[in-house]
């Protein structure tokens, strides 16, 4: 999952300027980015990791930090593997 972390970090760094985001850093605590950020994040995750973000995935806790996005992906890929 190191590769996933790096990809997410690279994507997020577009929005948080020169900040060196830590894996467990709360991105929502860094302030409002813009009204289009949330959807760009959904599209990024869907395209990059070939998953679909659905209603039930929409918990702030799932998108709070790089680590929480990685665990969401891990959970979703186990579900995918099981299906």
């Amino acid at each position, binding site marked *: 999952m190191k590769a996933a972390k790096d990809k997410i970090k690279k*994507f997020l*760094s*577009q*929005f948080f*300027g*020169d900040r060196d985001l830590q894996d467990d850093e709360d991105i929502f605590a860094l302030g409002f980015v*813009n*009204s*289009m950020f*949330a*959807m*760009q*994040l*959904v*599209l*990024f995750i*869907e*395209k990059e990791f070939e998953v679909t973000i659905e*209603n039930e995935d*929409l918990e*702030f806790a799932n998108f709070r930090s790089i680590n929480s996005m990685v665990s969401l992906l891990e959970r979703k890929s186990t579900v995918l593997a099981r299906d």
Partner: protein
Amino acid sequence: MKLELTSQQKDNCSSFRAFVDEEIVPHADRIDREERTPPEIIQKLANKGYLGAILPEDWGGTGMDAIAYGLLNEEIGRGCSSLRCLLTVHSMVAHAILKWGSKFQKEHWLTKLASGDAIAAFALSEPNVGSDAKAVETTATLSGDSYILNGQKKWITYGQIADVFLVFAKWEGKPSAFLVEKNSPGLSIKPILGMLGVRGSMLAELHLNNCQIPQENLVCRQGFGFSHVASSTLDLGRYSVACGCVGIAQACLEACIEYTSKRKQFDVYLKEHQLIRQMITDAIANIKAARLLCYQAGYLKDSGDPKSIMETSIAKYFASTIATKVANDAVQIHGGNGCSSEYPVQRYLRDAKIMEIIEGSTQIQQITIADYGYQEYIFSQNRSSTSQELVART
């Protein structure tokens, strides 16, 4: 890189064009004048499957890709912007349900929306809330197994005839989205007349006075109504408006080419005057540029690229501003006739101006696009310094 429509897309384009020339263009001035869209024209759109354009075939839709949907919007926009607005808002709601709706909502609504048996409208704006859309004042409270909605929505496109509205309200202070059927108790619908443009788009105000809807009508989840439901929906709306604007500008250009080839002043056709040719040149170049931005946004949408959102905003900004400019020049080129209802260019100008206000005004796009520009710049600076560090280390 290959910047060319596929043969399938070219075929789509010709059949959309033929439909618009035959079924829409002859009625567009009347729709504008009478401030209403005759139901038989909506039925024709439905029969062609255009109201289900973005819905997959599994739900009875036409399953168009983003490029085909864009071409459809351009062509309908060339004929009648009011009708194009119907396609916009109806598809926005269909998209919201497809992406964020529950299984029940999909089963209940999608096939009806695809066939046009039900018409949908998008209800975000309010008397006190426009550009700052997340500040909606309409409230929702949960009471037993119903939500109770209170507030007022304004400028709702096709609100006079819609069967279902996607309404945004705050539930426990958090922006949320709800489906409200037209016969819901406590909902009253008041027509809005006398608008500057898209006069046939049957706008309405919605008054929600203890409006009661079933609990299963919440779309997505509490708190995600703005960040996810409205923003993904508005992104599709912006794409549709951008392509529709290319259509308006194209209609202006075609009207001007025809007019300047027939009317003479100072013993020559208007097209022989260089100052007229300059306006024609600007129109041609701007239309081509706007169309390419729309194609690029559509291409990125089809590949699910996150960049598609900002590129759509750029396409909408550019296409709507050039549509107003091209339409303004078209009226100028037509002189007195351009100001008369006997020629459609005055309608194009009035409709184009509306496009700079809806789906995020020109100023709101400017703010967002500039932010994006700075973001990209800082990002590429960081990236190049990181790569320089890497180079230095190896």
